């Protein structure tokens, strides 16, 4: 092989330990007939295609329907199922932002995330920087996201350390009183659902 051909193929990188484990496990599952390549590919596609829209729908409904909001805060999983969202095995805790309290989510141990509701987590959520600093100096981290909170507001950080998964119910922005559910959902993005941002209304 000539020097040029090698360059065209990019730099050779050996598999990391975890990549090798993933390939080995996948090949074994296929070889033993537990899963097929097609099933694995389909599931990967489904996971990749999932966004955070389901989360925004839940928030918009809670803003419009006080009884739903109450059920959501009491039992997040059941309330989501009411909306026809299939969230198998998700033990969802919804935490509500108020004028007095701001909530944000982190998993310091790994990167637990309510994927069935919010899709694939962003890279920063999995970074050591976010995971270690969000419990240690949350106000500094939030400021880096552009969210500066007054000392009068209590910050509640939720470390998703075991079996529960979390979603933040942000405050509904002022000036959206007559808005439809769909339009309200459009105000909410992934960062709002994790508590590193707040939705902006027409008056903000």
């Amino acid at each position, binding site marked *: 092989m000539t020097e040029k051909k090698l360059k065209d193929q990019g730099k050779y990188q050996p598999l990391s330990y975890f990549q090798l484990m993933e390939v080995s496990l996948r090949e074994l599952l296929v070889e033993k007939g537990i899963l097929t390549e097609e099933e694995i590919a389909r599931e990967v596609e489904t996971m990749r295609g999932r966004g955070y829209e389901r989360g925004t729908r839940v928030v918009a409904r809670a803003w419009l329907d006080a009884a739903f909001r109450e059920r959501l805060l009491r039992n997040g999983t059941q309330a989501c199922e009411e909306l026809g969202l299939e969230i198998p095995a998700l*033990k969802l805790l919804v935490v509500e932002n108020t004028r007095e309290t701001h909530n944000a989510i982190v998993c310091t*141990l790994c990167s637990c995330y309510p994927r069935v509701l919010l899709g694939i987590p962003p890279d920063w959520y999995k970074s050591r920087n976010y995971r270690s600093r969000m419990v240690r*100096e949350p106000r500094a981290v939030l400021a880096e996201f552009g969210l500066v909170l007054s000392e*009068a507001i209590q910050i*509640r950080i939720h470390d998703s350390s*075991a*079996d*529960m998964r979390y979603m933040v119910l942000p405050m509904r922005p002022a000036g959206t009183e007559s808005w439809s559910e769909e339009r309200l959902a459009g105000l909410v993005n992934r960062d709002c659902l994790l508590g590193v941002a707040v939705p902006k209304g027409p008056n903000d």
Partner: protein
Amino acid sequence: MSESRFKPGARVKVLKAYPLGHVRTPYYIRGHTGTVERVCGEFPNPEELAQMRDGLPPQPLYRVRFLQKEVWPDYRGSAQDVVEVEIFQHWLEPA
């Protein structure tokens, strides 16, 4: 099933222990005292699951609320700021 020993509002202290293996109690919270925020239910013990055992009987899991100023003496922020962590019952003792 194991009975839950602590009720919401109870003061609890996290064991300061360092066992080997897969443990879901973050290092930074071991040895600290907080308040039970809620009982989350019962879940198979992850330390056992990681050893390919069934993790049964399931263990009560709590959300415990800690004041940031107590966890990090040099914490910068409001004295009311809190961090809430999920902790299994066998990691807690009455405070």
